[in-house]
Structure formats: structure tokens, C-alpha cells
């Protein structure tokens, strides 16, 4: 049996109830506690963390390792303990994306990633030194493309 979300953004969407993620403390600033990870196309760069409870609420997210090859999440020991999280390599990590009309203005919040483990989600504070709130998403890729163009020239 699937679960239907009457999404303001996407219209009616069907999600697998098993894919619903419980956020025991929600996401900072929102009251929703249950979200589904919605992909609009296969192997999409961006997924939508869509509230199951609020048809208006959906946030674009991405796996930061798609864009930032060296991205790491460091948790304060008490936060790891509080969440009962295993080693983070064994979990799914997403970051929220601030979209814009221009790709070069897209940013990702590397400071407060969303860690999903065993059906539970938590937005955590990353203690790593290189974890800006607004990291340009296409900065690193743009640099690589420029390097490749230089080598080809």
C-alpha cells in the first residue's frame, strides 16, 4: 500500500510508507515530524524532503558527496551519543539546498546536514572546520571543468 501526499508543489505523489523518515525533533524551524524522500527522476541530483503532514512543506536536498568529494561530518561526542548514531559512514547524509534562478547561486548548508539512519532523521550541527552554511554547489565542479578545459587547450 502506498501513501499519498497531496503536495502543493507537485500535486498528488505516491510514496512507499516504508520510506517515510521520522524526525523525532523535526527540522529546525518546522513542526513536521515525518518526511518522505521524494525523487522526481531516477538518479536525480536533488531529492525533495517532503513533509507527510504538511502539503506545503518540501525542501530540496542533495547528497553532499556528489558535489563536495571531501565532505565530512564531525559530530560533538554528546550529540552522537544523544542520537545513538553509528559511525557516520554507515548512514545516509543529505544537505538542504538553497535554490536560485542561476545555478551559480545555488548553495548547500554543509553546517547542518541531515543524517538518516534506520528510518530516523536528525538535523545535526557539523563541527568540521570547513562546513559553511552556504557553500556554492557548483564552485568545485566549475573549478574542475575549468581545469579540464585548461588541460585540453
Amino acid at each position, binding site marked *: 500500500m502506498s501513501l499519498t501526499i497531496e503536495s502543493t508543489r507537485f500535486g498528488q505523489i505516491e510514496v512507499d510508507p516504508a520510506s517515510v523518515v521520522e524526525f523525532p525533533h523535526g527540522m529546525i524551524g518546522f513542526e513536521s515530524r515525518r518526511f518522505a524522500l521524494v525523487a522526481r527522476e531516477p538518479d536525480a541530483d536533488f531529492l525533495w524532503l517532503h513533509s507527510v503532514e504538511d502539503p506545503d512543506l518540501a525542501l530540496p536536498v542533495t547528497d553532499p558527496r556528489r558535489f563536495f568529494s571531501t565532505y565530512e561530518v564531525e559530530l560533538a561526542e554528546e550529540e552522537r551519543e544523544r542520537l545513538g548514531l553509528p559511525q557516520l559512514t554507515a548512514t545516509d547524509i543529505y544537505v538542504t539546498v538553497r535554490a536560485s534562478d542561476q545555478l551559480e547561486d545555488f548553495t548547500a548548508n554543509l553546517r547542518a546536514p541531515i543524517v538518516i539512519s534506520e528510518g530516523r532523521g536528525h538535523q545535526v550541527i557539523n563541527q568540521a572546520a570547513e562546513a559553511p552554511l*552556504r557553500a556554492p554547489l557548483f564552485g568545485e565542479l566549475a573549478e574542475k571543468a575549468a581545469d579540464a578545459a585548461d588541460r585540453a587547450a
Partner: protein
Amino acid sequence: MLIITRRPGEKIVLGDDITVTVMEVSGQTVRLGIDAPKSLPIYREEIWAAVKQENEAAATAGEIPPLPRRPKRA
């Protein structure tokens, strides 16, 4: 806002299970010790506010334009 004067070593209690202790006062800096249920998230306010702002901005995004093709990740 409730305003309470405390000295180092003194505490305030919020409800039945949250205790905030003034550990040390030094110039412009106050060190606080917080005893709260493990499940309760505790944030420095400026981080909390900044993340809230980013979350809200993310949720108000318009359509996401198609991405340029790029090499598969290694």
C-alpha cells in the same frame, strides 16, 4: 522576559528535568553547564537561527532548473 541574578556555582531549574549551572564568569564570558534529558537538542542560538533561516529559504525555492551534464562522481 524573566531575569534572574545568579553567581558562579548557582543554578536555575526549568521544569522538572533541566538544570542550568553558572560554571564560571570571566570578563564578557559566562560558562554554563546544562543538565537536560539526553534526547533534548541544545543549540547555541546564533547557529539555531542561521539554520532555521537556511531551512526556510530552502523550503521556499522555486523550480529547480535542469543541471548541466557533469562527470559521474568517482
